[in-house]
């Protein structure tokens, strides 16, 4: 037992604040958990999405491949279109994400007439080499992401994006 006496006022303060805090947290906890739910939701594993691109028709020149897939956004389901830039590196098929690593705009192959053999981002003139390597001195801070790639019956399938493995 400690010798410091707890006064009546202190005792009431502590008990009332304790009970009040318990009640308030019982009220607020469900609401806060409700609000932060998107943060705690487990990310869905990406399936491979079929495209209509024949692998035999690919060359060393990147081509734009659009693909559509069903997206479930909360209560809203829709078909959305994604894009990849695809080319052959020897026997290997490379599919790069068009999302600029500066601030998320969309890059184009040869979008800048002064640099026909680079990816170009029109927002802030970011540039990338063919393998996705960002050109030093332009805004992007990293190389373009790369898609997981699968080939079935000569057709290209695209999976999840991952950090560039070519560099």
């Amino acid at each position, binding site marked *: 037992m400690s010798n410091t006496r707890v006064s009546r006022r202190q005792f009431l303060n502590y008990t009332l604040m304790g009970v009040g805090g318990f009640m308030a947290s019982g009220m607020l906890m469900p609401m806060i958990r409700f609000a932060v*739910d998107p943060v705690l939701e487990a990310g869905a594993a990406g399936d491979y999405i079929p495209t209509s691109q024949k692998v035999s028709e690919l060359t060393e020149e990147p081509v734009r491949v659009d693909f559509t897939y069903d997206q479930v956004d909360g209560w809203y389901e829709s078909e959305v279109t994604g894009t990849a830039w695809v080319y052959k590196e020897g026997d290997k098929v490379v599919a790069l994400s068009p999302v600029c690593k500066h601030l998320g705009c969309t890059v184009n192959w040869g979008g800048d007439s002064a640099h026909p053999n680079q990816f170009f981002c029109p927002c802030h003139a970011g540039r990338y080499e063919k393998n996705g390597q960002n050109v030093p001195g332009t805004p992007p801070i990293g190389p373009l992401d790369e898609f997981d790639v699968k080939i079935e019956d000569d057709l290209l399938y695209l999976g999840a994006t991952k950090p560039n493995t070519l560099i």
Partner: protein
Amino acid sequence: MLNKIYDWVDERLDITPIWRDIADHEVPEHVNPAHHFSAFIYCFGGLTFFITVIQILSGMFLTMYYTPDIENAWRSVYYLQNEVAFGEIVRGMHHWGASLVIVMMFLHTLRVFFTGSYKKPRELNWMVGVMIFVVMLGLGFTGYLLPWDMKALFATKVGIEIAASVPFIGEWIKILLAGDSTILGAQTLTRFFAIHVFFLPAALLGLLAAHFIMIRRQGISGPL
């Protein structure tokens, strides 16, 4: 630590008198349930306010998922109730609280009536209380449509027909509420949503402030 922060602010802004004005006030023996248990009837006003706070909080959180659009309203409610963690609880708080706040407000009204607390000099506070009652019923009526299920739709149809039966201006009230002279649809839902989350809560907060300032100025009415 907290004391030091308090002192720091108090030294600059002299907040103690403000705090005292809010927290320190007479609680006469005849309204204190610790003295006479039957005095619990004096708690209904405070309970109404407590549930109102829960309604405002849970409503704010519900709008993070709710969509006031005829295509998505029901689906977003279904989603937030069945897919989001604690969605059933948060929607449940708002759903049951909505009924409970009216029950509590009604009991508070009865208490004020039977203790004669509305009499001079408190007539103005009674009038403001009646306006709060009307606003609360409006919140209940507009909120009922928002889940956009069958019950909501047809209850609102009936409610709007009742409003339309007002002599002379009924038709105008109906169109003003529904946003269209014949359809109860997309425009009705957005209107009811706007009224439910912006207009009526703003009116309610103003009226509650007036209600509380008056009761603090006049004090609690004397014993029977």
